Every structure is written in structure tokens, then in C-alpha cells.
């Protein structure tokens, strides 16, 4: 049951346009021309799907946050308010695009593009179905790690270019935080690579006979925390920190520039969910007759919802606590996780270097026990240090002259 197999498949479009070009008699040129055509078409589709899904994601986020907060979200435009994002975008486009007079104009103008481009680029290597992907890079995961680091530069550009103290504070925080969290994220990814033995996203998916979230929950925890920080969501949303910095790095942006920043910001959870679904939740794997694309979307949806749930519940950590969490907590846990996974692979791997499903299940059993023990120990240690509250003793400086009831 792969009736969606041709969807967003590069070679479908390639074959189509190749036959088309050959029919019109382009001869030798037909090959590269159809290659180009197919690429343009498929990028067009992916980018538009991403932008459209971001629009609906903003609506979804506001509705669900509304439900979390026992109120109704936007519900006026269209059925259930689903046209709200379009109204928002229309309003933002209509607004005047102001640039502060002291701003560094080229940097200020380029920043939104520099922020949205890498986020879109990540989608290029994500396999959205068994055969649905833009490009099957053999170093796909390395590509993702590389491209995400552009984000920190873009955020710094936005803050620096707008010549605003709040924006600079926000972007400085952003630069420090994003660079720090790339390390635990890379550690989380490394453990996935150890398991799958390949850098290609398709291979990572196909090697997940048992989902990696089950095999290495500790690695998933490290990666998830780091990814949350990378997209600067609660409890790590220091870059925007609307209650402290007004709006952080995008304080000075308005009009269409703000819309693009907004787009990048809300696209990030979707992309993160896609990466998490691919690396840890078995990507497109599922059972028939539901096609892989649907499975993939469902898994993304779950991850997005969890991120939203965190956002609705938790306050924000302070910047030094966030940095401490990265270097003292996640870094150590990530190394520990790699260590365990490496030892287990050494023990369990077969002659040809792969792992069988039964071995993976055994590994997951061991790893769950290790994870729970580790986390409980850490919770204990921290709990003894931080949770104690001295019993209040009335100060001798005041005496109301009445007995307490």
C-alpha cells in the first residue's frame, strides 16, 4: 500500500520532465534541464508546504495553548478560526516596514532571510516517506548539524544590526546559548550514528527496527533538551524572553521582516519535530495500510504537541542556569550515553557489523534501567541540595503582642 510513494519523489518529476524535454527534442541538454526542473518543482512544493504548515501550526499552537489555559483560542476567522494566520500575515505585510535610523541596514535586512533559509534547508534531507525526500545526502545528519549552526549567526545579525540594547542582549544570549547547546545535540546525534552506522537519514530510518527512543532513552532526553534550547522554546526561551527583553533580538523588526522572523521561529518546532521523528521515532516506519508519510506526520504531531505542552506549563530558566544545564548536565549525560551505547554495540554486534532486532530489545531493556537509575540518582542528589526550606522563625524585631491562633 504505497499509493503515496510518488509524492514529493525527486525521480517522478525527473522522469516526467526528461520524457517531456526529450519529446521536444532537447537531446543532450534534456538531462540537466530535467534535473533542474525537477529540483525547482520539488523545492517549490516543499517550501510551500512548510510555509503553509507553519501557518497552520501557529493557529494550532494558539488554539492548543488556549485550551491549556482554559480559554478559547482564535475562533473568529473562518471555521474554528483557521484563517487567523492568514489574517495575521496580511496585517503584517500591510504594516510599514521600519528600519531604525541607526541600524546597520544590510545586516538588518539580511537577518530574517539568514534565519529562515537554514530552517528550510534542513527539510531537504528529511525523508518524509519511503521515497519522498528532496535529496538523499549520504551525510544527511552532518548537513543538519552544520546548517543549524547558521541560526546563531542569523540571530546575532538581527540583534547587532538593529542597534538596540534589548536586541543585543537577546542576541548575545542567543549566540552563547545556541553554540553551547550544539554540543549536547551533537552528542545525542552521535549515539544515533553509533546505532545506525550511517550518516544518511534514510539509513538511520531503515536501521530502526526498534525505535531509538526505546533503545536509548537517555540519548533521546539529551537530544530533546538540546533541541528545545536550539529552537529557544520554553524553558530555554532566553533569546526572546518577552517578559525580560521585550522581544529580544526581534525588538526592532516590523512588517514583512517581522513576518519572516516569525515564520522562521514557528517553522523551527516543525523542523525539529521532523528531525526528532526521523532520528528517534522511526521516521516513516509504521504498519500498513497507513502510508509512511502519514506515520511521519503523526510522529511530528506528537513531538510538536509535547513541545507545546512544555511551553504551556513551565517558566523560563535564567541564562546562567541554562548554560550550567548544558555544560554540567547534558554534556555529561551525553558522554555517558555514548559510552554505554558503544560498549553495548561492541558486545552485541554481529559479524557484519549490524544489530539484530532481538539484540536491540535487550539493549533497550538495559538502557531503560540505566536511564531510570541515573535520573533518579541525579534527582536525589539535587533534591537534597535544593529542596530544603528552613522552617520560618518569627523575627525577634517584632512582637504583635497577641498569641497566634
Amino acid at each position, binding site marked *: 500500500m504505497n499509493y503515496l510513494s510518488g509524492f514529493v519523489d525527486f525521480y517522478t518529476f525527473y522522469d516526467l520532465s526528461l520524457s517531456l524535454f526529450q519529446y521536444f527534442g532537447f537531446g543532450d541538454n534534456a538531462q540537466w534541464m530535467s534535473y533542474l526542473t525537477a529540483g525547482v518543482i520539488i523545492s517549490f512544493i516543499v517550501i510551500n508546504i512548510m510555509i503553509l504548515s507553519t501557518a497552520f501550526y501557529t493557529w494550532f499552537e494558539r488554539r492548543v495553548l488556549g485550551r491549556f489555559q482554559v480559554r478559547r483560542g482564535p475562533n473568529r476567522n473562518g471555521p474554528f478560526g483557521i484563517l487567523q494566520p492568514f489574517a495575521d500575515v496580511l496585517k503584517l505585510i500591510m504594516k510599514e516596514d521600519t528600519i531604525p535610523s541607526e541600524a546597520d541596514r544590510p545586516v538588518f535586512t539580511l537577518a530574517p532571510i539568514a534565519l529562515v533559509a537554514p530552517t528550510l534547508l534542513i527539510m531537504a534531507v528529511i525523508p518524509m516517506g519511503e521515497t519522498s525526500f528532496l535529496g538523499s545526502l549520504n551525510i544527511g545528519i552532518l548537513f543538519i548539524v552544520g546548517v543549524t549552526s547558521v541560526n546563531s549567526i542569523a540571530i546575532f545579525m538581527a540583534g547587532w544590526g538593529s542597534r538596540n540594547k534589548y536586541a543585543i542582549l537577546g542576541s548575545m544570549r542567543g549566540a552563547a546559548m545556541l553554540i553551547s547547546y550544539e554540543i549536547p545535540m551533537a552528542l545525542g546525534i552521535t549515539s544515533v550514528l553509533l546505532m545506525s552506522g550511517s550518516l544518511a537519514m534514510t539509513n538511520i530510518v531503515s536501521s530502526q527496527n526498534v525505535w531509538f527512543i526505546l533503545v536509548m532513552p537517555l540519548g533521546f532526553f539529551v537530544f530533546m533538551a538540546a533541541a528545545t534550547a536550539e529552537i529557544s522554546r520554553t524553558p530555554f526561551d532566553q533569546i526572546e524572553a518577552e517578559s525580560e527583553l521585550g522581544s529580544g533580538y526581534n525588538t526592532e523588526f516590523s512588517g514583512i521582516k517581522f513576518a519572516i522572523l516569525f515564520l522562521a521561529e514557528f517553522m523551527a518546532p516543525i523542523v525539529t519535530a521532523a528531525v526528532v521523528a526521523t532520528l528517534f521515532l522511526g521516521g516513516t516506519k509504521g504498519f500498513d495500510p497507513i502510508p509512511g508519510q502519514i506515520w511521519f506526520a503523526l510522529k511530528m504531531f506528537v513531538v510538536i504537541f509535547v513541545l507545546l505542552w512544555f511551553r504551556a506549563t513551565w517558566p523560563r*530558566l535564567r541564562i546562567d542556569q541554562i548554560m550550567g544545564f548544558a555544560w554540567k548536565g547534558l554534556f555529561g549525560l551525553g558522554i555517558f550515553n555514548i559510552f554505554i551505547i558503544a560498549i553495548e554495540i561492541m558486545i552485541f554486534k554481529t559479524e557484519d557489523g549490524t544489530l539484530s532486532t532481538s539484540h536491540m530489545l535487550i539493549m533497550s531493556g538495559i538502557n531503560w534501567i540505566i536511564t531510570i537509575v541515573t535520573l533518579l540518582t541525579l534527582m536525589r542528589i539535587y533534591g537534597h541540595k535544593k529542596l530544603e526550606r528552613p522552617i520560618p522563625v518569627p523575627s525577634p524585631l517584632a512582637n504583635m503582642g497577641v498569641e497566634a491562633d
Partner: protein
Amino acid sequence: MTGIRTEPITINLGPQHPSTHGVFRLRVTFDGEEIIDAEPVFGYLHRGTEKLAESRNYVQIVTLTDRMDYLASMSNNLAYVRTVEKLADIEVPERAQYIRVISAELQRIASHLMATGFLLNDLGALATPLVYCFRERERILDLFEMLCGARITLSYMRPGGVLQDAPEDFWPSLDSLIGDLPHYFDELESLITSNEIVLARTKNVGLLTDEQAIDSSMSGPNLRASGVKWDLRKADPYEIYDRVKFDVPIGAIGDTYDRYLVRILEMRESVKIIEQCLEQIESGPIRADTPFFIRPAAGEAYAAVEGPKGELGFYMVSDGGVAPYRCKVRAPSFINLTPLRDMLKGWKMGDLIIIFGSIDVVLGEVDR
């Protein structure tokens, strides 16, 4: 690392800023993220309440007091009418005193809910605890609408009692609210009190020792969070507070977390007070026979109540006319800002917001 030249950065926090709770401005000097100096600047909402009061008669001033601490109009009204009663020697009927205490305690709950909600909002919890607090506060405001037809600017109390008796449907609604409130607080507490992120952010942050607090004339929950057991309702009982039993919660060390916790505990005590008032209240007159234009004899009076923000006092001087000669407000929010600078020094940007939020000022009262 010699050779790297750094310089402090001065930031204007406000007057328009999401976390200054109004038009408040802080001129903060940062060294990186650390605060090295802070100077509060206010007055953007100054309306000259004290000057206006000199040209109003004693009942008209009630409407001015509504607009001082607009989150706690009932307490403002109470403080004001008590001063006038002291000035003009007016005896207040018992039922009126009970109704006043009930409404003032309801107002305290509403005000503390706002303080808690906004503190959590300042902590960065995307409005969820705030909306939960608003949900609870909404019912209290509905009760106020039953009582006096308005929700925020109440003008309910008059020298000599209250304006009119509560309607019949008020009492069952109050009963059901009182029954629900402890569950509200439980839910709020399980969301906030033991949350490790809140603990990490608020514990040991913005310390204020008891000596400092007394020296800087802090009052209300901020004073009690520093461990000073001082509550005007117990130390100098007014109205019928000496007939109800309640506890005065205090904090352990005087940090931001204690200031939060004291508010939560105080709300629970307020519920207890209202419950006891409901048991004790009897029918009777609700307003003493006071003339339309009160003309107190020349003299002066100072009376204070324990408002949600602290000791709210009025010092009034009369020259025998229909309007006070001088009406001075001892505004708790205003005076509670005294130690702000010392509390902020050495903390970080994120702490600044929550320390300021935990003091819980209302700019309408600061600027008057």
C-alpha cells in the same frame, strides 16, 4: 584577560515594558548581564490625588481612592472611610463592618492572585498560571458587581458603613466561591510551588533581611516574607478582625520564593476569615446616619489598614469644612520600592524582573 575593554551598558527598563506592571521606569546599569546600579523613575501616572482631595467633599474622595491601587479598590475604600470615621467620630453598624471585612478580604485574594499570576508571567511561564489566576479572580469581580455594580472602581464604602446591603443572590454565590477557592489554591500550588524551575529561579534570589525590611519601612507580605510577624489586622485590630481567628504566615529568609509563598498562604487565611464572618454576620443596619456633607470638627486623624500591598494609611487634617484640609496617603506600593535598589544590585537581568514582580507594586498607587 587584560586588554579586553568592557564598559557597562545602561538600559531604560520602561516606561513601556511588559514586566514593569504599568508605566514604571528603571534606569539599570548592567555589567554584561549583572546589575551594578538601578534607579527607579516614576511619576508617569501621577494624577495629584492628594491635591484633588482638597477640593472634594468627604464622599467624593471615595471615588478618588478607587483609582489609587486599582487592583484593590475595596481596601483603599476601607482605609479611607476608616480615617474619616475616626476624624468625624462616626460609629459604624456591625453588619456594615462584617460586609466591609468580607469584601476587603475578597479583594485581598483578588489582588494576591494577580500578584502571583504576574510573578509567574515574569518568570516566563507563558501566561498559563496567569490565566488560571484570572479565572479565579473573575468570580470575585462578579461578586463585586453584585455588591456595587462595578468590578474594578467600586466606590462601595461610605463613611459610616457601606453603600447598600448585599443582594440576596450574593450570599449563595459567595458560599460557593468560598467552597471552591481552597481547591483553586491547591491547583495553583501544585502547578507552581514545587516546580523546580520556579525554585531554581526564585530561591535565595533578592534577599531582604528582617532588619533591612523594617529599616526601609516595608510593609505587607513583603515585610512578612522577611520573617517579621507584623500584621495590622492582628497588631492593631480594626473593624471586627479581633473576633476572627486567623494565622499570620511568615517567610523564612525573605527571598522571592518566600514573598510568593506568603501570598499564597495569606489567601488561604483570607478564606478562613470570610468563612468565620459568614458564620457571625447578623442582619441589621448597614450605614450609620451620616449627613450628606460631612463636616468633621477641626483636627486630624491617621488610620491604616492592612491592604494587600501593605499598610495603607490615610492622614487627614480637617479644618471643619466639607472638604479635608489635607489628605495624605501612605501608599504601601510607593514605600515598598525603597529597598529596590539594594535588592537588585548584583543580580542578573532575569532576576531583576522577578524581584520587582515579587514586590508587587501597582503604579496607580505609586504615582497616585
